[in-house]
């Protein structure tokens, strides 16, 4: 970090089992930074974003994050992606006192201010999301047999914990690992158990695989999917000709929908995407990547001219950030978790759209409460100092 530049790094799956969809996030974040840099940066500092491919392999994440911190001497790690991957570098980042901002995952591990004072989440945590999705199932699919397929790590476990807080024990549960791209046995077992609703805590590649595999064995339950594995465009691309299987898919999200032409943030993001991101196919991954960048720029702005690692963390803890999300952020000294709510979405035909209220809750036994989302338009965009 100098007076004219801030170097920030990230680890992302650009190749490998989680690359579908996710590989578009970091380039979108970088595109937004270029937009900000073109307007003079933040307090005269331009933001450089170094993206490292960890192939969603926790061992590779170890290596690339060490390289970013020890060799490239990045000022902070931003939006490192993945529960299993990022969990392994928490201690290393803490030892080196590197701010670890807005992790691209909803694991509850990011919210441990005492143990990891520099780590902050971004996504709503998977338990919060599990509770919101499960309360939808409780309202709309009363009395049906609800089952669960999740990633065999904290992602799946946190999600299931939230679901079971609302619904009680699920009828059947299965797990998968990303290193084995076959969910045949799992979907077979869920079919055997007579599941009518299958709740998925899966990354996009495995959401598509699960839905496709189920259809192949003549199993057509209702799918209710975690936000991290539910982007319609990503799934449709994965499924190809089988994309109509996505009709009726229920999920949740907390960022503006990429197909919402009326949202001012989407308008802005599309312009930036055209100008700085090589006009990549515009989907929710790009919205996600740019929303991360918006929040980071807000945090830099809030820190002020005297930017140090400590002052940045203090500024994030002061909180009060506004951005494109329909959900509130509640960063404080005692809360490092990400967005605190979600709104449900549904695929009708080929269109994924929000419906109903937005909901917020905690990861304990608190109730799932409806609220009316308010979005702050990007007029107050802090691109100039």
């Amino acid at each position: 970090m100098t007076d004219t530049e801030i170097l920030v790094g990230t680890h992302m799956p650009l190749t490998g089992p989680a690359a579908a969809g996710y590989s578009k996030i970091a380039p979108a974040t970088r595109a937004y930074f270029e937009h900000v840099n073109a307007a003079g940066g933040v307090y005269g500092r331009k933001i450089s974003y170094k993206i490292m491919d960890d192939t969603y392999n926790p061992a590779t994440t170890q290596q690339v994050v060490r390289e970013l911190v020890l060799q490239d001497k990045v000022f902070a790690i931003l939006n490192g992606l993945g529960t299993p991957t990022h969990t392994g570098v928490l201690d290393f980042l803490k030892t080196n006192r590197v701010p670890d901002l807005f992790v691209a995952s909803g694991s509850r591990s990011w919210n441990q201010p005492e143990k990891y004072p520099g780590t902050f989440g971004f996504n709503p945590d998977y338990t919060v999301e599990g509770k919101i999705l499960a309360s939808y199932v409780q309202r709309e699919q009363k009395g049906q047999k609800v089952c669960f397929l999740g990633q065999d790590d904290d992602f799946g476990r946190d999600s299931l914990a939230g679901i079971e807080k609302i619904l009680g024990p699920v009828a059947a549960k299965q797990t998968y690992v990303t290193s084995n791209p076959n969910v045949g046995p799992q979907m077979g077992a869920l079919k055997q158990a007579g599941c009518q609703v299958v709740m998925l805590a899966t990354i996009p590649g495995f959401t598509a695989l699960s839905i496709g595999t189920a259809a192949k064995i003549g199993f057509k339950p209702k799918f209710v999917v975690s936000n991290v594995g539910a982007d319609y465009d990503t799934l449709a691309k994965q499924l190809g000709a089988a994309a109509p299987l996505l009709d009726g898919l229920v999920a949740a999200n907390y960022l503006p929908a990429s197909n919402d032409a009326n949202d001012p943030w989407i308008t802005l993001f599309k312009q930036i995407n055209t100008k700085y991101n090589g006009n990549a196919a515009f989907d929710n991954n790009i919205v996600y990547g740019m929303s991360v960048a918006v929040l980071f720029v807000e945090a830099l702005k809030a820190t002020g001219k005297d930017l140090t690692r400590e002052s940045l963390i203090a500024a994030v803890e002061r909180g009060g950030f506004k951005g494109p999300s329909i959900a509130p952020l509640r960063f404080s000294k005692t809360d490092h978790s990400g967005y605190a709510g979600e709104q449900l979405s549904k695929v009708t035909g080929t269109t994924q759209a929000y419906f109903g209220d937005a909901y917020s809750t905690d990861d304990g036994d608190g109730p799932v409460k409806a609220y009316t989302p308010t979005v702050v338009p990007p007029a107050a965009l802090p691109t100039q100092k």
Partner: protein
Amino acid sequence: MTAVRERVPTRAGEVVRGRGRLWILAAAPLILALTYILPPFRTYQLATVGAYLCVTAGLTVLTGLNGQLSLGHGALMATGAYTLALSQNALAGRGQWTLAVSAAAAVVVSTAVGAVVGLAAARLRGPYLAGLTLAVAVVVPSITSTFDGTFNSDQGLSVALDPPPGYIPVERWQAWLCWAGALITLLLLANLIRGRFGRNLRAVRDDEAAARLAGISVARTQVMAFVVSAACAGLGGALFAVLAQSVSPGAFPLALSLFLLMAVVIGGLGSLAGALWGALLLVALPALANSVTDRFNAPRLEGNLPLAVFGVVLVIVMLAAPGGIASLTRRVRNETHPDRASRSRFSRRLFRQRRQ
């Protein structure tokens, strides 16, 4: 490591190897100095070389001196790494001695696993042996997800480590640990392959029937070679767990086992100097590939480029110096030795797949 008793050299070349052990001792102060000179990231890479060296040294004894091909050393490393992780997570917080206990446990457990694999391997030859060891390498992720309660599936385990004593930076401490392990391994191996055991290894490699006629138990020698090699791999794996402060099946993929084998062949099969070259390459080539992809801004290549680079280097080295990089330095010293010649013949044979 002071009880290095000199044996009467039986052949001219053995004297050279005796000198090699002096080099190993001389390396210690050099490494120590390097950990003070190098910046933290280079020190971390130096530590990684040390950890790899434990494995490549063991593998080169198995493949180069005994002629047994192993595509499963990554799995033996995983055995050591998981043992260390489980042991550390149970013991840590009581002081640095726990690390020594955990590392010892890692060596013991991987030795036991190596003995089981070795017993089966001693009955197999050529492609069947390769197939068996390949299966061992492939089974690691399945084991971790089947027993996810213990091994936590793909996410793996984090390793509880006590902070380095005093104000020693983490990377320097890691380099010391890894190189202590590597140098001890090298000393023990150098000692071992100089004596009767080493001659048995070579005799079995060169001609099993002749070895049997000379009164050597072929199966026993082969199992022992596997056990020694597994112990080294287990120690290397344990050191990797210390370096990464975590273990996961993704750290020990099939590609790692293949890289290890390629590294010892490129370095020079059957020589400990070759193992050092191999360990250096294992760290340097991916880093090189990384900087190349950086320059051309082609991050998607990154996962695949090291493999391609390794392949190209392997082809070039096999064409230019079939005895590996270590044979080049020997050629410079203008030494010829029948044993080395047979070693390079062997490596050529191995990669033309003409072994029976």
